[in-house]
């Protein structure tokens, strides 16, 4: 993945747990040069190892780390110079999710080696929707779930997300049920 992603992992750890924890995590993950370059491509392995090491050092399951990362991403990407792109993608949750696929396509146009996930929205009501998530990478559904939560915060609307069916059960992609607004309040 692009360095941008690893940089966000770095920022998340340092801001929540301090520079020392990061040093420990980076060492455990075998990262020798922690100065990631946003626009340079790194093997996916680096990111997976960082998540594994963070899970050990911070004593949290990998899924929790991935979800926290997802939630942090909506804040980080805005600060890392993609704020306008986020604005451009929509000013409410539903619009935004509908544009998510196009947005990653646009990002891919400038990051030519990007292997972005693909998203599709179906069964939209004023309380809920179904989000389809296609990815070449294994195990990142918690990231997507964290991101949706982060988007709820961004748009100041409550969200509740659950995995309806997924690649773990032999599907070719993951499908989430996203309750939002009144829909999320009803289950809270």
């Amino acid at each position: 993945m692009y360095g941008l992603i690893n940089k966000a992992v770095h920022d998340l750890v340092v801001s929540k747990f301090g520079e020392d924890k990061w040093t420990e995590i980076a060492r455990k993950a075998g990262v020798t040069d922690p100065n990631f370059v946003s626009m340079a491509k790194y093997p996916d392995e680096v990111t997976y190892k960082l998540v594994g090491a963070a899970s050990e050092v911070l004593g949290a399951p990998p899924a929790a780390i991935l979800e926290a990362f997802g939630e942090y991403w909506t804040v980080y990407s805005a600060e890392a110079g993609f704020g306008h792109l986020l604005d451009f993608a929509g000013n409410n949750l539903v619009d935004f999710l509908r544009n998510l696929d196009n947005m990653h396509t646009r990002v891919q146009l400038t990051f030519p080696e990007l292997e972005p996930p693909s998203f599709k929205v179906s069964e939209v009501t004023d309380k809920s929707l179904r989000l389809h998530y296609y990815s070449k990478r294994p195990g990142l559904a918690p990231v997507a779930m964290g991101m949706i939560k982060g988007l709820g915060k961004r748009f100041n609307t409550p969200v509740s997300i659950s995995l309806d069916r997924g690649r773990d059960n032999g599907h070719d992609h993951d499908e989430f049920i996203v309750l939002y607004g009144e829909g999320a309040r009803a289950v809270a």
Partner: protein
Amino acid sequence: MAKARVPSHDEPISRPAGPAAGLGLDAEALGRLFPFHLVLDRQLAIRSAGAVLQRVLPALAPPAAFSDHFTVRRPALALDFDTLAAHTRTIFLLAARAAPDLILKGEMIPLKAGAQLAFIGTPWITDLTALPRLRLTASDFPVHDSVSDFLVLIQAQKTALEDARKLAEQLGEARDAALKASRVKSEFLANMSHELRTPLNAIIGFSEMLSTQTLGPLPEQYHSYADYIRSSGVMLLDLINDLLDLSRIEAGQYSLEESEVAVGPTLSECLAVVTTDAQRKGLKLSLEPGPRDLRLRADQRAIKQIVLNLLSNAVKFTERGGISVHVEPHRLGLDLRVVDTGIGIDPIIIPCLFEPFRQGHIGLSRKYGGSGLGLSICRNLVELHGGTIALASEPGKGTTATVRLPPGRIIAGG
């Protein structure tokens, strides 16, 4: 909170009201406007293709199968007519099988009441140098298509970035060279220590013999010359010692020799050194040594040097009143304070005084002498101990120098 609105995303923004609302373009005009378009039928055979696209992909002769010539990079979908037709307002990236560099970016538009599908797009290029490889020139792009302007923009930005990168590289090299020069200088000075001090010690030693007339009386005149040689030699030795200390610190060759330092006795020794000078100026010296038996883990010589420098400044810059030394252990460590009632110094310039060769009383420096190294050495030695040093002053009233050592340095009595 605002009620969540479900936007009517899939509806066209406005529906053209029959053929009258169309542009009424003929085939040639359409070909010029969309030189990279494709028209697909329900079997996904290519019914027609834009002229430039056909030129770039000569094998693409209708009715070729779409999937023989293109792959859909984005979005992720099953390749059938209805699925494609359902993805309006979606960015499609089509990669040409015969020319993997050629990525068409565009969208699908259903035609003829659903019997056909048009792909309207344009090559996605981010580098002007890719154009010749794809056998494309600017005139292949319709004027309304911004890709060609965009390429110029990117090229300009690339040039600017390249300039910035070169500049950064040059700056980096200059910095490395400066750092190296500075290190070489420090190493040189540190290594010169012996060479400089040996002859000076001889000068001081022999002039001392002359001025004490060890080997018999000297003419009055020679006696005072000998005195002068000796005192100049001592001043020069002091200066050289300061310079060498500073360069050893800068070269990273100064390592603390840590031992247990008894605070009270050490301070008394330092005060004794400046007593004669203080008495000559009629200044009162006092020591408040704090808790008895207070000891530090520190470099004895360095602590003495720090306190002596501060005391010699205090004596030098005080005309009447006195100088007191205070010791105060507390939660944040140990404070050593040297307080004088002297001429003081403008607080604005205090931060500069810790740099080498900086003196505060410019016009008066002849009167007070010195070379401006004392405080800079103090700061370095204090920092080697993990501490901090600060000056506070009110011009005309006096100055307080505070050295704060971290709590970990206190062994007992704190």
